[in-house]
């Protein structure tokens, strides 16, 4: 079996709201595959369908060769998941959390004890094993959840926003574990993230998701090629509307930024910049500032959607609205 996950036309609705609008993708065995997209794009919903927690409204999804709707038990046996929100027993110790998980998955005795020891050492929590989880920092809790998800040796591991809300050092630390897991255990890892650097650092392939659709898919390099090779930002002195984009055939894309700068996608910035000055002079526009850089995944997202990935929207703001409505009712 070549693919760890095969999804065809998957649809998931909540009442009138369609969270996932017919997505199709495949995850190869042994790769790290990332869903990248802003909050509310439908990433978590997709993960919940793939992990048998939600029933889809349409389409098919196979995980580890089994249909998530028809054979949920077979799927559950083969997957591990670290949820976006913590799902630990806060009153219990790290060891007890691991122990209960192991028992539920059918392990016991000395074998279980050894596995727990090995995994808690792997995430460097063995010395804190008898401390209740409520005294753990966010990073420690995440590490414990990662260790717990590995306990039953899943074929496919789902990580839903594994480093959300963690400080940069802790994030880098978690990334190391994820890489080590892939190397040592030859595991397929499916992760969702709204951090571009995370997708870029970890993933073999990335699917960019927005408003319930996959809008692009490929390696980080392949995705960046969608933009062109380089991105140039220009600040000009009061350009007229028509000349803002300095139309020329070497400019592959153009967008006026909210701060007034103009963003140009070009093949090679080094060659394009002198040409731009010539063009500007012809049209009687003064260029005040030029910056350029290699495209990032954020540029890709901007190129595809016209928005930045960091824009907050969807889930988060909906959640806030609901909260506000609740407060008012009281």
């Amino acid at each position, binding site marked *: 079996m070549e693919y760890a996950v095969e999804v065809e036309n998957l649809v998931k609705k909540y009442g009138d709201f369609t969270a996932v609008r017919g997505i199709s993708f495949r995850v190869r065995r042994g790769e790290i595959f990332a869903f990248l997209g802003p909050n509310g794009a439908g990433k978590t919903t997709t993960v919940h369908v793939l992990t048998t927690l*939600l029933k889809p409204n349409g389409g098919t999804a196979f995980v580890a060769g089994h249909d998530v709707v028809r054979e949920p038990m077979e799927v559950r046996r083969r997957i591990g*998941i670290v949820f976006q929100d913590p*799902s630990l027993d806060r009153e219990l110790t790290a060891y007890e959390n691991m122990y209960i998980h192991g028992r539920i998955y059918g392990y*016991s005795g000395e074998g279980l004890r050894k596995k727990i020891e090995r995994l808690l050492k792997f995430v460097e929590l063995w010395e804190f094993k008898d401390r209740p989880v409520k005294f753990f920092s966010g990073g420690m809790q995440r590490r414990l959840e990662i260790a717990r998800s590995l306990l039953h040796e899943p074929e496919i591991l789902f990580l839903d926003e594994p480093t959300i809300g963690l400080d940069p050092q802790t994030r880098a630390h978690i990334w190391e574990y994820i890489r080590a897991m892939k190397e040592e255990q030859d595991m397929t890892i499916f992760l969702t993230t709204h951090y571009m650097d995370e997708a870029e650092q970890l993933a073999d392939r990335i699917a960019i998701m927005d408003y319930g659709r996959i809008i692009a898919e490929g390696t980080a390099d392949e995705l960046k090629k969608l933009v062109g090779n380089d991105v140039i930002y220009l600040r000009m002195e009061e350009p007229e509307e028509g000349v803002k984009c300095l139309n020329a055939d070497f400019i592959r894309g153009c967008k006026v930024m909210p701060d007034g700068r103009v963003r140009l996608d070009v093949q090679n910035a080094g060659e394009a910049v002198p040409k731009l000055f010539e063009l500007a002079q012809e049209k009687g526009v003064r260029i005040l500032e030029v910056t350029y850089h290699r495209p990032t995944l954020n540029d890709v997202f901007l190129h595809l959607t016209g928005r930045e990935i960091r824009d907050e929207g969807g889930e988060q703001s909906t959640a806030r609205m609901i909260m506000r409505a609740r407060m008012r009712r009281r």
Partner: protein
Amino acid sequence: MRVFTTMIYREMKRFIRSKARVIGSLINPVIWLVLFGKGWAGAFNFPGASMIFGGVDYMTYLVPGIVAMTVFNMSFIQGITIIWDKQFGFIKEILVAPASRGEAILGRITGGAIMAMIQGVIILALSFFIASGLKLSGVLPALALSFLVGLAVAGMGVAIAMRMSSMEGFQMIMTMIMLPMTFLSGAFYPVKTMPEWMQWLAKVNPLTYAVDGSRYYLAGVSPAFSLRTDWTVLTGLALLFMGIAVVEFRKATID
């Protein structure tokens, strides 16, 4: 069976860890027992008063009611706090596991009922120091009845909690369900001297049968219903509510 016992183990660990909460929850029945009980015991200390209470003094009459109330309250809380598991994510852990959901939730309920019963045992042990007419021989059957109430009520708590989406309704449910059911159980005064409409409500209250039966075993007061009725009703309700909880939990998805 492994998931079932694991869930009981988890309840036990959580119970031991939350000492403050356990001790705090024992204060309530102790206050009823000592302040309410001793207060009325003095007032009912006139000749013939014991006739009202089936031939025993008021303290002895009250104890089985307070013990049943303790188990009832605790198991309801144990059951309904599954909403915390829902909110803090432990439920998701169970739902993605290749384990029988029915077994898991029955383990959760049974664990809750056992922990509630342990609190009942503590209250009962204290009661032997302040009520003179209690019978040691009645302890086991009375606790068995309490355990059935525990299963029924923890199951009821789980079933309610599975339909709640937040903690908002929690306080209201506690007041709307637990308080009236306690007063309508005959724990504090006989059912047969209640107004008729209250008697009707008492008869549909599972706690009534636990109080009735354990009062016979612990205090020797002849039961208002037959013992067979007490056992049958409680067993039936335990099975019914556990069944509902299993059905609700099997259907559970996450929001």
